[in-house]
């Protein structure tokens, strides 16, 4: 195998260590080496955002980051959103507001919405649409995604411990 690099980082709070070629993208490491198939590969051209994860407090398209760049990073995927077996407020809101149909974009939507609400806990509809502009959906027309984010924002504002 071509030269590999050891890379260790935190994935949903747990330290993981992998051995990767420099050219391995984070999305492939997450899905294939670490069996976290939450983040999806949607477009191959860095447009759709279905691969979005949270890395060091930032929303990142994991298809456009090399795993070797992530040494020491704190990475969150949709698998890490649950709270003690219960759905995160965002997940619950997407369910209740019907913010998904096929579900393919949903992990990316959830991870971006998660960071958006950390950046701006009370976003307006316009701020949600601008703030989620890196996540494309072919099914829903976005209306219910916006409603889900708004509902989650209200819920989290009322009970901040759930964030």
């Amino acid at each position, binding site marked *: 195998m*071509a*030269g590999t*690099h050891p890379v260790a980082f935190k994935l949903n709070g747990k330290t993981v260590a992998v051995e990767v*070629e*420099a*050219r*391995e*993208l984070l999305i*492939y490491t997450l899905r294939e080496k670490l069996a976290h198939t939450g983040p999806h590969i949607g477009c*191959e*051209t*860095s*447009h759709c*955002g279905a691969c*979005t994860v949270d890395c060091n407090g*930032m*929303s*990142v*398209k994991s*298809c*456009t*980051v*090399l795993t*070797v*760049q992530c040494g020491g990073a704190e990475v969150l995927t949709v698998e890490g959103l649950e709270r003690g077996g219960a759905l995160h407020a965002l997940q619950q809101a997407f369910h209740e507001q019907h913010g998904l149909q096929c579900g393919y974009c949903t992990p990316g939507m959830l991870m*971006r919405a998660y960071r*958006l609400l950390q950046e701006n806990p009370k976003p307006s509809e316009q701020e949600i649409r601008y*703030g*989620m*502009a*890196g996540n494309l959906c072919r099914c829903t027309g976005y209306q219910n995604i916006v409603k889900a984010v708004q509902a989650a924002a209200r819920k989290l504002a009322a009970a901040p411990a759930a964030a």
Partner: protein
Amino acid sequence: MIPAAFEYYAPGSIGEAVSLLARLGGESKLLAGGHSLLPMMKLRFAQPAHLIDLNRIADLRGIREERGELVIGAMTTEAELIASSFVRNKVPLLAEGAGSIADPQVRYRGTIGGDISHGDPGNDHPALMLALDASFVLTGPRGQRTLKSDGYFLGLYETQLAADEILTHIRIPIPAAGSGWSYQKLKRKTGDFATAAAAVLLQMKGGSVARVAIALTNAGPTALRARAAEAALTGKPLDEASLGEAARLAMSICNPTPDQRGDVAYKTAMCGEMTRRALQAAAARVRP
């Protein structure tokens, strides 16, 4: 959609990066935010043998004020520019321009230095830099040199940056207090490159234009400064006649590449329209 194999380096200092670049030569590429380069590598349009990652170099980040200029580390991300109160208060044109780039995820990684250095005429920072009369600090094995943005952009994927140099800082003269500013960007859809865009910096005096800078994005092989339009406006009030003339003169320097965003006539007309809107929006922001 996986890049060809390459050797990866993550230097911790500018000096180390310069040494690596000198040693590894023409088959190496610098990795900044990676959101122009990595997509090209995934398509195998670019296949560098070596990648020198600049993300670990602390000296390439940070925004400070120095003798009437804003000095910005080249690895400062778009998100950092937008969040910076320095930038929002002193050079709001830059914050507005950065906010129009791509999408939130790209802005968390994409850097001002990478955007400038890539040489894609669709990138937004070159026109912003031209309108702001910015300068670029380049560091190489023979030391540092500072080049003006005017004349820096040579063509498609080509700037004055030498193969053994790294863009380390961007210097922007702080616009006079009360200046008007606007970046108007026409896009087919969210996150797209500009169909046409215009950056304007404007100072008025006694109801007439005292100073104006107009620069265009994606209107040619590089960002363009619309100097004839600027000259025609100087000393004149901003009215239908002068705006129309400025738009016409801005359009006269356009040489856009026809593509899915539009043919030459459409893109040129939209440059005129973005120029007009940027001038109007800038005028509304002027403070006496």
